[in-house]
């Protein structure tokens, strides 16, 4: 069976390296953390699992690692069902949030520990450790103990400990969250680069990378899985998630500043679909209208209308387009661009403007904005499903 949705840009369809089917986890205290997860991660793919804290990202990772017992469902790594295998037999490596380096061992010993346990010859161990150290530029740290290293250095040793094992799957549990903002950005790039180098070196390991930070997810992942309350909301490439969020949760979670989403009403006027939001009435573009019509909600049911800050701009002199007019409450200027917060009929909106266009907008001013309605999304009122999405 050809796994669907594993079509990566510029690559052929490949074997799933990790396959999770109907995975459920109930903790001994009775708490159900995972509600039947299905997920496939390809060989050599960088998969980011993202979601708010407590949505069971770590649980998923720990189940794959074998640190927790599966309640039901299967986990397959390569071609083996690993449910009943010990962690060491799963050909995985893990990088923990707090690194979990052995404090009484040097960096070298930390990295060599697993290899020693696997009874590799000394020379081989030494070669692997040094190779990994070179890759991570930590040769100078090999004789140091964790307490004599900075956070970033520890982090790299922890990654090194994973690399030397040449696993089929790397598991990362929020490995950057203990670093300061600047280091986090540079480590982000390094990890992606490392993944690429490993791949180029013929080590087609999959990476499963857990984070609660959607920016990290967007910048690092080949694909992203968005989770909420123990369920998968959507799995797709970063751009697809951004442009075609499957539901209101994903739409609100991905992207910064977050999508403007407000209560709305739908009206059908002949072929036209009109969305009524914040006291405005906008006609949807024909293609969009057709899709909404296809999954028309119960009459009178409220829906949600979502529009990204990028799709709102200051109104030009023309003014024939759909528009919003509201009092500006805050302007955040980051230099190249500015986020402009304003209020329409009690609904809060944010627009992303080019820095120069923001001009001398001031809080208290009344701004005229135009909205690219055809870039908006309509979510059903009950489930929050995106009903304006083009069928794949």
């Amino acid at each position, binding site marked *: 069976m050809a796994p669907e949705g594993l079509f990566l840009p510029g690559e052929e369809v490949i074997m799933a390296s990790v396959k999770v089917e109907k995975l459920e986890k109930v903790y001994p205290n009775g708490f159900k953390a995972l509600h039947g997860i299905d997920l496939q991660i390809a060989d050599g793919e960088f998969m980011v699992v993202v979601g708010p804290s407590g949505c069971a990202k770590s649980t998923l990772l*720990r189940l794959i*690692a*074998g*640190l927790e017992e599966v309640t039901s469902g299967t986990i397959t790594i390569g071609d083996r069902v690993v449910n009943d295998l*010990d*962690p*060491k037999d799963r050909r*995985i*490596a*893990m990088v*923990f949030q*707090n690194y*979990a*380096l*052995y*404090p*009484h061992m040097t960096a070298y010993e930390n990295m060599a*520990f*697993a290899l020693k*346990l*696997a009874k590799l010859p000394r020379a081989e161990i030494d070669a692997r450790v040094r190779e990994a150290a070179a890759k991570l530029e930590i040769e100078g740290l090999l004789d140091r103990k964790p307490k004599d290293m900075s956070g970033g250095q520890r982090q790299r040793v922890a990654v090194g*400990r994973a690399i030397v*094992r040449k696993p089929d799957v790397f598991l990362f549990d929020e490995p950057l969250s203990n670093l300061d903002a600047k280091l986090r950005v540079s480590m982000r790039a390094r990890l992606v680069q490392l993944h690429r180098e490993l791949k180029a070196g013929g080590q087609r390991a999959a990476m499963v990378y857990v984070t609660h930070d959607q920016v990290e997810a967007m910048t690092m992942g080949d694909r992203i899985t968005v989770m909420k309350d123990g369920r998968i909301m959507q799995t797709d490439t970063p751009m697809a998630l951004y442009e075609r969020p499957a539901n209101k949760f994903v739409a609100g979670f991905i992207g910064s500043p977050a999508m403007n989403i407000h209560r709305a009403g739908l009206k059908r006027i002949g072929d036209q679909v009109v969305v009524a939001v914040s006291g405005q009435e906008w006609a949807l573009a024909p293609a969009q209208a057709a899709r909404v019509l296809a999954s028309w909600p119960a009459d009178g049911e409220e829906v949600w209308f979502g529009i990204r800050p990028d799709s709102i701009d200051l109104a030009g002199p023309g003014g024939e387009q759909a528009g919003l007019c509201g009092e500006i409450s805050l302007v955040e200027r980051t230099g190249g661009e500015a986020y402009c917060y304003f209020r329409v009929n009690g609904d809060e909106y944010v627009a992303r403007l080019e820095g120069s266009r923001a001009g001398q907008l001031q809080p208290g001013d009344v701004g005229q904005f135009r909205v690219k309605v055809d870039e908006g999304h309509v979510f059903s009122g009950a489930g929050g499903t995106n009903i304006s999405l083009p069928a794949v």
Partner: protein
Amino acid sequence: MFKTGRRGVGQVSARGNLLLNLFLFLLSAACVYPLLFVLMISLSSNESIAANGYRLWPGQFSFGAYQYMFTIGQQIITSYGVTIVVTVAGTVLSVLITSLYAYAIARDDFRYRKFFTYLAIIPLLFSGGLVPFYMVSTQLLHFRNSLLGLIMPLAFNSFFIMILRTYFRAGNIKPLIEAAKIDGAGEFRIFFRIVLPLSLPGVATIALFSAFAYWGDWYNALLFIDQPSLTPVQAMLMNIQSNLQFIIQNSTNLSAQAFDLLRNMPTDAARMAVVILATVPIILAYPFFQRYFIRGLTVGGVKD
């Protein structure tokens, strides 16, 4: 104006400090004085004790008691040997048994941890009493006149279990256990290579408590031992209270010279010399290890 009596924020006044010092000094002196006194008795000559009784400053100093100990006190050597063997073997054994047990019940993924936790706690609450213990020990386990009788009763201790368990449950340990699992270490290797080295302060505390308990133990000897060759130092001390002969009855070849010594035996000084010899190791070791004891006292509760 003058500055006396002005105290820093949160500090006692100079006069208060003086009073506190006085109070603590007197108490501290009371704690140390008796041992000093006994030391001086052990250094007194026979004549001076006969004439003046025990004095902090003897009329006449003499190392006679110690000399005497080392010339014919064969028993002292034997007893020291017994105590050292029991202390070393017992401490190693008890640290091993206790830490393994405590570690297993500290692990969340041990299925029967509750059962074994209760199993260790219940004896703290209820015991069969001395007689059944004595009967089982002598009739079933044959502790009578056996080193086992000195080692086994102290080899496991539920309080140690509770202290160690808190160390093993410390927040930093769990992720390391998981990392080690992923690295492919088995449970015993995880324990000996990762957990034990990281819990060294806790284990050292237990080892010290244990070593001091073995060193100071006379109770099990009182119950089980009447052979001089198996009598530890503390029990020997007990025996010579009534009968200093005990020290020499074990010596095989009493020369004429030894008999001579025996006649002029510095009885009182000799007893006190044995007290000093039995206590010296503790005096020497205790100040260095004090902080471990304090830590041991302030961690650990029975509760889950």
